[in-house]
C-alpha cells in the first residue's frame, strides 16, 4: 500500500477491496449457479413487478428483485416496498394502466408465454420498506430499478 493509498484509507475515501471482492463474487456466483442470464432475469423481474402492481402500489425505486446465494442455495429475493394497496374494485383497470405504462412492456413481456403464471407467495418484506428513499417518482423506469440491483446485492 502506497502512502497516498494509506492516507485515503485513513480518511475513509476508499473502502477495503475485500468487501468489493465478496460482493462481486456473490453476485456472479448467484448467476453462475442458477444459469439465468441477465436478460432472462430482467424479463422475469419485469413480469413479477407487473403482477404485483395489479394488487398493490409499489415503490419502484426502492424495489429490488435479485438472486442471492447462501450455503450453495440460490434464492430469488424480491424486496418490493408497498406504498399502498389498490382499492379492490378498481384493481383491474389500474393494473391495465400500470402494465401499459412502460412502452416496451406491452410487446416483450406482456404478450410472451405466461406473464399471468401463478407466483408463489413472497416473504413479507414490509419491515425493510421504510428505508426506501425518494419514492415520489411514480414513473415505471425499469432502468433505474435495475441499477439498484447492483447496489444492493
Amino acid at each position, binding site marked *: *500500500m502506497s502512502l497516498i493509498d494509506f492516507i485515503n484509507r485513513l480518511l475513509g475515501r476508499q473502502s*477495503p*477491496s*475485500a*468487501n468489493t*471482492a*465478496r460482493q*462481486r*463474487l*456473490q453476485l*456472479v*456466483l448467484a448467476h*453462475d*449457479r442458477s444459469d439465468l442470464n441477465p436478460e432472462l432475469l430482467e424479463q422475469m423481474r419485469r413480469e413479477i413487478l407487473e403482477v404485483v402492481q395489479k394488487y398493490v402500489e409499489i415503490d419502484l425505486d426502492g424495489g429490488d428483485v435479485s438472486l442471492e*446465494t447462501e*450455503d*450453495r442455495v440460490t434464492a430469488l429475493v424480491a424486496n418490493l416496498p408497498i406504498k399502498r394497496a389498490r382499492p379492490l374494485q378498481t384493481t383491474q383497470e389500474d393494473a391495465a394502466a400500470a402494465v401499459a405504462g412502460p412502452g416496451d412492456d406491452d410487446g416483450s413481456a406482456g404478450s410472451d408465454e405466461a406473464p399471468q403464471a401463478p407466483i408463489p407467495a413472497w416473504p413479507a418484506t414490509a419491515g425493510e420498506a421504510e428505508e426506501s428513499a425518494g419514492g415520489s417518482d411514480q414513473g415505471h423506469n425499469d432502468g433505474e430499478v435495475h441499477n439498484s440491483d447492483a447496489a444492493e446485492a
Partner: protein
Amino acid sequence: MTSTSARIILICSGKGGVGKTTLTANLGIALARLGERTAVLDADFGLRNLDLLLGLENRIVYTAQDVLAGNCRLEQALVKHKQQPSLSLLPAGNPRMLDWLTPEDMKQIVALLAERSDYVLIDCPAGIEDGFRNAAAASHEAIVITTPEVSAVRDADRVIGLLNVQGIKPVQLVLNRVRPEMMVSQEMLSVEDVTEILALPLLGLVVEDEQVIVSTNRGEPLTLAGSPSPAGQAYLNVAQRLRGETVPIVDPSKEPRGLRATIKRILKKRLF
C-alpha cells in the same frame, strides 16, 4: 468400482496455477511419511508437471497408457520416490496418444492403483472439460484447492457444482497462498469469506511461502524436510487431517497482535 479400501482423492481447482500439483506432490510425500502406501496419478496429460515437482522427471519410462495398452506391467510404469519409497508416481500418458483415453480407461487404471495403495491422489488438469471429467469419473472424494482471489473462487465454485452432480463426497477445501497481513487490512478475501461462499469444510490453510518456489526448483517437496517451512507444515497438517487426526486450523490473520505477541514471534523465528 474397487473392492479395496483405498481412498481415491481427486485434487482439483478449476483455475490453473492455484497449486493443485504442488498440493498433490506435498500431500503424497506427507502421507508416505506417515506410513501410508500412496500413489499419485498425474491426470494432466497435456501439461504434466507432477514428475518435475517430485524430482522424478528423469525416471519415467512408461505411462498409464502403456499399462492399459499392455506394453508393460503396472509395476514397471510406477516410479518409486527415492527417499519415500511408499510413494509412487504414475504419469497418465503421452500428449500425442490422448485420443483414446476415456473415463473408463481412467477408472481401470485407478482401480489397478487402488489395489496396491492406501491412498490414490489424482492430480486433475485445470478446466472443466474432458480431462476433468475423466479424472472425476475415477474419484471417490475430492479436495478443491483455491486462493483468496475472485477468479480462483469462482472457478472453484463451478468445479464444486460439477463434483456435487457426480456424487463425489466428501469435498473438502484447501485455501492456498493466504497472505495474513493483506487479510488483516481487508485487502484480501478472508478465510471465512471463502469458506462461506463455497460452503465447504476447510481441510487446510496454506500461507504464501517463498520456499514453495525454492522446493519446486529443486524437485524436493517441502514435506520431505525434517522441519518444514510454514507451507510445508500446512501440507503436512492436511495429510494428518485426511487421516482423521485432529489438528486445529490456525487462521494466521487472527493470530495475537501487539507488542508482546510480535516479540514472541520474532524470538521464535530467530531461535529455531
